[in-house]
């Protein structure tokens, strides 16, 4: 064993700490070993990834690329159960033999098992709702530091947007359209426990500030991004409310179930994975360097000139290294899984870095002859980020970088020149062109406005399951998730005056979140007659979420001493030092689910849940009940269907309730300077708030044919979310200025289709392909007549030209801003040729009309190639970046217009007479561009089609690895992401969104460019 490790060491792939960890682990040897090969009974081709299990134990293995398996069994007379998707499961009795080759018949029955709500495994064919599973090997094909990003294009019904903060950033995942005024992100459930996917500090405005108080915005990373991708066994996307009804309130937006790896009896192995990728910027804005600024002007609207391109050398080649080791092993009574992963990343923006360590220990054990089983998981994540990318106008190096007046030399402001000594203050102060809050010297920001964030997260679950009879068990589970986040930003003296005071600015945010979850489940499963079986689950759960935050910001009164960044250096009064608990909520629930199956052809599911939400305390009722019912019919079991291997139709109806925000029903006095202040928002006298309610209906069909080599899964759904929490302005004479009410009806309807096909399957070549299609239509059926102009604002643009609103009759989350003024379909300009701004209007919706994902895996012998192409079609997005670049005369578009002698637009004067000639470029872009210009000019088609992932893998043959040991397998792949944009109509990547909350969608405000990455991935198992 040690010898093998040495060989691995000589390959110089792995880092020393990984080796030290594995040195202590010595695999164990079992007395009984059985090996063999699993093949297709028809073609004789090996079946790769087939499951081989010993009945009555948890011993199991999967076949390798040659269809071979090796398994430690408890007895020489054991019975093996061999299964493979699309094939009939077969039992083989060993009867003392040490080898067993198994041939499987392509099956007509579909016995896939998926994990569903509450961790209950069910046969997929019995499900009455849409569910899609993605395996670990798929997720890790082209590894992403945030595993959720790997779902892009692989499932229907999801819209995935990454934040612009680079590696380790948060991801916004919306399932089946946006429906809530409060939160639309899916719920993640890890091994049956709901995860609080908290993402602190998300920006809320174009400036990049968080909240309304001018706090510094950022992306602190969400909780799901902290998971080691290698720990994941599979993910199941439970779509729609029916699937989620049992997870209650939090599941109204859909659920992604994450099943993590655990140790397996007799399957002792060590897995190394090492992943290195290099990233380069793509789709950075197109700039001009051919026109200079006029003397002492910030805008580059002067004479022709030629400046060197100072932008292209600014970005680095980023690098991300993810190394992990996983150790699994165990015997019949106790199994262990241990993993460690190390992620380290340097971003494309200089000084931007992230490092992360994940440690996981999972122990499963059985007692009392297997009647009592214990499952314990411990996780620790440590993450540190320096200068993670920010979006928005403030503290963003990209504004000054892109906008620097042409004709100046960047070298005069970079390197040692980003600061210069000031004899008055005796400090080195910023050296930059002019003082504007929306641009500073880029290198000043990187070096003298640095930010640091760190996270320590402890996550632990303990579950005990007791088998009462062979048809009943009871399970008790508890979980604690504690996260400690710290963020600091140090702005040195010399930072622009809007952003910091004369002695600098210190911002500190300490956050602690504590989530406690517990549940008790009683599972009964019994065949009532030979044809009718029933499963009943009764349970109760409690989920308590608490977030504490301490925010300190010296802005206003400032610091006593320059450039000392500690709290006691903050002057008072007037500094924002706030201790708050933005979210303490508790949800208590009882629930039950009954499933009936008749002759494997008819299935009926009924669930019911009652929640008690602390957020509804002080309301007339804190309790709400919601049911679901679903049925599926296996037509292929009922009728002989020629050419059809499997056919199912399903229907379900569900409701999901949701509470309101913490403290809504009980808003207390606030602390301002100089004494408590009465709240101006709350409930109007005589009114009450109740839970939100989503009602959803779905129909689906699942058909398999061509000997199970082709399958089509189709779903139609409609969801109406009513009784939303909406804040409306009320007459101030009522005693409040804004009131919280329940109102609205937001409808989502859509179609999801998934076609999977194995066009080629032979001994040496296998090609599997899957197409996922999603379309969702969103409509705001009703909002509330109490809203001003019927508009509910998600992002208030303020003085800027981007708002995000909900408006009756439109889709959820429209981009709104100033339009042009039109006359006879032509834009109206002044006699000088300056376009006239029209009224604020709805200009587009960032949600795509439909999305398509096309995922292919081709295996030629030991090689495998993965190709994932996905596209979003339609929808409108907006670029504030482009608007500002145009206003400053810094974009290529402005130079092109100047070269062409003006902007060629068909325009008319206010009286309808045509404007003759082209519009003067400077006048045009000065009026249209800028963060407060004419929004409509910067609305783009959101269509984007890309080669999202490409991987070429090679599994080294046994002949190569046998020198290291007979169980060793080695795999090498070359991977790439975002390699080709076939179509991308906007000047930025619409996959990236400025924030992962409900607002600021479909807008780019100086986000870091998207990246194209190439890399290599090595996997070694022994």
């Amino acid at each position, binding site marked *: 064993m040690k010898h093998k490790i040495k060989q691995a060491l000589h390959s110089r792939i792995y880092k020393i700490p990984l080796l030290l960890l594995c040195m202590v682990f010595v695999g164990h040897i079992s007395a009984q070993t059985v090996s063999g090969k699993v093949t297709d009974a028809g073609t004789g081709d090996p079946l790769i990834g087939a499951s081989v299990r010993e009945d009555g134990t948890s011993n199991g293995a999967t076949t390798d690329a040659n269809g071979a398996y090796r398994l430690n069994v408890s007895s020489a007379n054991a019975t093996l159960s061999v299964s493979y998707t699309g094939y009939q499961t077969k039992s083989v009795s060993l009867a003392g033999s040490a080898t067993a080759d198994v041939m499987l018949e392509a099956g007509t029955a579909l016995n896939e098992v998926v994990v569903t709500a509450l961790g209950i495994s069910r046969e997929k064919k019995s499900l009455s709702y849409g569910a899609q599973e993605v395996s670990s090997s798929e997720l890790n094909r082209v590894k992403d530091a945030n595993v959720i990003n790997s779902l892009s294009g692989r499932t229907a019904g999801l819209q995935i947007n990454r934040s612009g903060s680079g590696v380790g950033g948060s991801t916004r995942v919306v399932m089946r359209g946006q429906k809530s005024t409060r939160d639309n992100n899916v719920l993640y459930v890890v091994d049956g426990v709901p995860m609080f996917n908290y993402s602190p500090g998300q920006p809320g405005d174009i400036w990049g500030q968080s909240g309304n108080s001018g706090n510094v915005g950022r992306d602190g990373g969400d909780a799901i991004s902290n998971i080691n991708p290698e720990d994941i066994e599979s993910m199941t996307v439970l779509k729609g409310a029916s699937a989620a009804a049992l997870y209650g309130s939090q599941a109204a937006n859909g659920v992604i179930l994450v099943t993590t790896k655990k140790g397996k009896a007799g399957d002792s192995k060590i897995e190394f994975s090492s992943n290195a990728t290099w990233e380069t910027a793509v789709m950075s804005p197109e700039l001009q360097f051919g026109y200079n600024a006029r003397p002492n002007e910030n805008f580059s609207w002067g004479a022709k000139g030629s400046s060197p391109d100072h932008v292209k050398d600014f970005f680095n080649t980023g690098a991300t290294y993810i190394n992990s080791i996983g150790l699994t092993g165990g015997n019949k009574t106790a199994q262990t899984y241990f993993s460690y992963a190390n992620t380290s990343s340097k971003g494309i923006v200089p000084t931007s870095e992230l490092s992360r360590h994940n440690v996981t220990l999972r122990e499963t054990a059985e007692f009392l002859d297997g009647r009592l089983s214990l499952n314990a998981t411990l996780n620790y994540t440590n993450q540190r980020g320096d200068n993670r990318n920010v979006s928005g106008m403030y503290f963003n190096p990209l504004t000054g970088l892109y906008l620097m007046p042409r004709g100046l030399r960047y070298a005069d402001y970079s390197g040692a020149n980003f600061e210069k000594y000031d004899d008055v203050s005796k400090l080195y102060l910023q050296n930059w062109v002019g003082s504007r809050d929306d641009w500073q010297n880029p290198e000043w920001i990187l070096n003298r406005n640095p930010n640091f964030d760190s996270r320590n997260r402890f996550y632990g679950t303990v579950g005990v399951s007791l088998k009462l009879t062979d048809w009943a068990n009871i399970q008790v589970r508890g979980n604690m998730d504690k996260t400690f986040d710290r963020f600091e930003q140090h702005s040195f003296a010399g930072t622009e005056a809007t952003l910091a005071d004369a002695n600098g600015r210190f911002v500190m945010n300490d956050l602690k979140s504590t989530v406690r979850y517990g549940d008790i489940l009683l599972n009964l499963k019994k065949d009532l007659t030979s044809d009718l079986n029933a499963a009943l689950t009764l349970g109760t759960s409690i989920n308590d979420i608490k977030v504490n935050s301490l925010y300190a910001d010296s802005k206003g009164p400032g610091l006593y001493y320059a450039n000392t960044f500690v709290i006691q250096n903050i002057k008072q009064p007037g500094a924002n030092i706030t*201790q708050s608990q933005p979210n303490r909520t508790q949800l208590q629930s009882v629930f039950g689910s009954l499933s009936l199956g008749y002759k494997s052809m008819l299935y009926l599911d009924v669930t019911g849940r009652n929640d008690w939400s602390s957020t509804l305390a002080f309301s007339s009722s804190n309790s709400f009940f919601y049911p679901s019912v679903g049925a599926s019919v296996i037509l292929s079991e009922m009728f002989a269907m020629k050419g059809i291997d499997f056919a199912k139709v399903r229907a379900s109806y569900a409701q999901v309730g949701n509470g309101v925000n913490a403290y809504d029903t009980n808003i207390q006095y606030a602390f301002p300077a100089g004494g408590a202040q009465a709240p101006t928002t709350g409930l109007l006298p005589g009114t009450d708030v109740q839970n939100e309610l989503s009602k959803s209906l779905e129909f689906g069909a699942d058909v398999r044919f061509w000997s199970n080599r082709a399958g089509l899964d189709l779903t139609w759904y409609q969801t109406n979310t009513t009784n939303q929490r909406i804040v409306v302005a009320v*007459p101030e004479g009522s*005693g409040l200025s804004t009131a919280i009410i329940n109102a609205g009806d937001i409808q989502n309807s859509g179609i999801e289709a998934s076609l999977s096909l194995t066009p080629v399957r032979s001994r040496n070549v296998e090609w599997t392909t899957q197409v996922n299609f999603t379309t969702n239509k969103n409509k705001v059926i009703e909002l509330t007549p109490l809203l001003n102009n019927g508009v509910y604002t998600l992002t208030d643009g303020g003085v800027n030209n981007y708002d995000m609103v909900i408006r009756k009759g439109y889709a959820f989350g429209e981009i709104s801003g100033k339009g042009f003024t039109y006359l006879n379909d032509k834009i109206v300009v002044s006699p000088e040729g300056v376009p006239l701004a029209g009224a604020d209007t709805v200009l587009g919706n960032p949600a795509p009309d439909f999305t398509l994902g096309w995922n292919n895996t081709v295996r030629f012998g030991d090689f495998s190639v993965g190709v994932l192409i996905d596209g979003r079609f339609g929808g409108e997005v907006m670029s504030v970046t482009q608007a500002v670049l145009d206003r400053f005369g810094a974009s290529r578009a402005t130079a092109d217009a100047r070269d062409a002698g003006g902007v060629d637009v068909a325009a008319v004067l206010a009286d309808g007479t045509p404007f003759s000639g082209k519009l003067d470029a400077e006048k045009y872009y000065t009026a249209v561009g800028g963060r407060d210009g004419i929004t409509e000019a910067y609305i783009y088609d959101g269509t984007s089609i890309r080669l999202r992932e490409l991987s070429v893998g090679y599994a080294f043959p046994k002949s190569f690895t046998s020198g290291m040991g007979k169980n060793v397998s080695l795999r090498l792949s070359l991977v790439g992401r975002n390699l080709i944009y076939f179509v991308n109509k906007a000047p930025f990547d619409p996959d990236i969104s400025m924030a992962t909350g409900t607002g600021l969608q479909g807008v780019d405000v100086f986000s870091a460019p998207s990246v194209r990455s190439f890399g290599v991935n090595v996997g070694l198992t022994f």
Partner: protein
Amino acid sequence: MKKKLSLLFGAIVLVAAGLLTFQSCTKDFEEINTDPYRPQNIPVGEEFKQVLQNIYAYSPAWITQLQQNLIADVYSGYMTPPTPFRGNSNNMTYDLVDGWNEWPWHVAYGSVMSPLRRMEANAGTNYPEFNAWAKICRVEAMHRLSDIYGPIIYSQYGVLTPGGGVEYDCQEKAYQLFFEDLDAAVAALTPLKDDVNAKANFAKFDLVYNGDITKWIQFANSLHLRLAIRVSRVAPAVAKVEGEKAMSQSVGLMTDNSGDFLVTSADGTTHPLNVMDNAWNDIRMAAPMESILTGYADPRLAKYFVPSVIVPGAYKGIRQGIAIASKSDYEGFSALADPDKVQLMTAAEVYFLRAEAALLGWTGAGGTPQSLYEQGVQTSFTQHGAGSAAAYLASTAPAAAYVDPVNAANNAGPASAVVPKWDDAAATAVKWEQIITQKWIAVYPDGQEAWSEYRRTGFPRLYKVLVNNSAGKIDTDKGIKRINFPAPEYSTNKAEVTRAVQCLGGADNGGTALWWDVD
């Protein structure tokens, strides 16, 4: 089998017990849903601090700027910004900015009416002194609001109509309610004025008189007189009854500067005018102040303003409603001498109110118009440490001509023709103008009261705007009369604000005169 069944039974009991345990815990929900990082167990009366700091908003300064500075402080002739906000088309040039002008409304309801109502709900009948105190504060805040817009929400505050709106009171009704509320407050406080407990209760939250209930009663009576004088032209009979009542209350009126209504900041916040003046350079002396105070050689000039930068050593004010190309053109005009506490009423003002009452022939003024006028001037001098007013009161120096060092187009002769010296033989109209002109000087820097009195009386005579961007809504000669109702009222309370416009008796714009503003 039996064992299995008993296990199953045990499990059911466990689940059931779990359910019961959980569900019985919903009693903690109220505690969970109470934000522990908000002030807990606010003492009844704490609200007065917020109220007293918001009749005139102490902070943040931008709110004060919109609540009063860019409205009444300018229209009173006290101050003018050098800044050409919005390309110089703004309140100063009569292009009323809705986004600014809703702030007096927001502050009055959000930071005065709302906390007072909460306080009353919390106090119940346990603290009669607080209920009375609340009435005084409310009248002081809301008469100022009514003097901006006209009809306001007062008696129906917090009461929703079936349509979800809130009804206004016409200004005449509001003034009647102000008188009634002051009567009730004074009646309730008078027996408690020496009550140790009541005084101690006041003292905890009193940012004005440190718990001196007598002074609060004197303020209430003085306020009563101010409001009576305000309606003396539109409703002379009511005014006489109310004014005489105010002057005959047993506890009396404010008589010296120890009774001045000066609000201290609860947390050391500086007077917001200092921020607007020094940090933002957004406010400067106005031309009428320069004309009158320099002409009179008024010793209070140096107490109110600092010499200009633009004409070193000289006091220069900016004329309101002129063409300003760049802020830098007028930034060098006279800045303000930093005011200290927020001043909402002074003993000097009360002497001038009494002087006018005497001039009107009301009973109980306690002196002749001349003696009360001269006491008013002397009290103001004393307040500002300007010494004896004897020489000043003998002066016949008139107001000076106004010269704009940046743009001669703004030059003008003196608008005011009266002098400090009282001439008992002069016409009543001259005496009236003298009283109001001196009151105007004394009331500085409270532009709200000065603008109201200017509209009621036309005094002191101010310069007309030269740039009028009101699109015909505001007559240049008559000047601005009010502020239109806040835009949010039209989106949230449309039916009621429409009715309020009816009782306004004219269009909802800055050209329609308020009820008490009769020519």
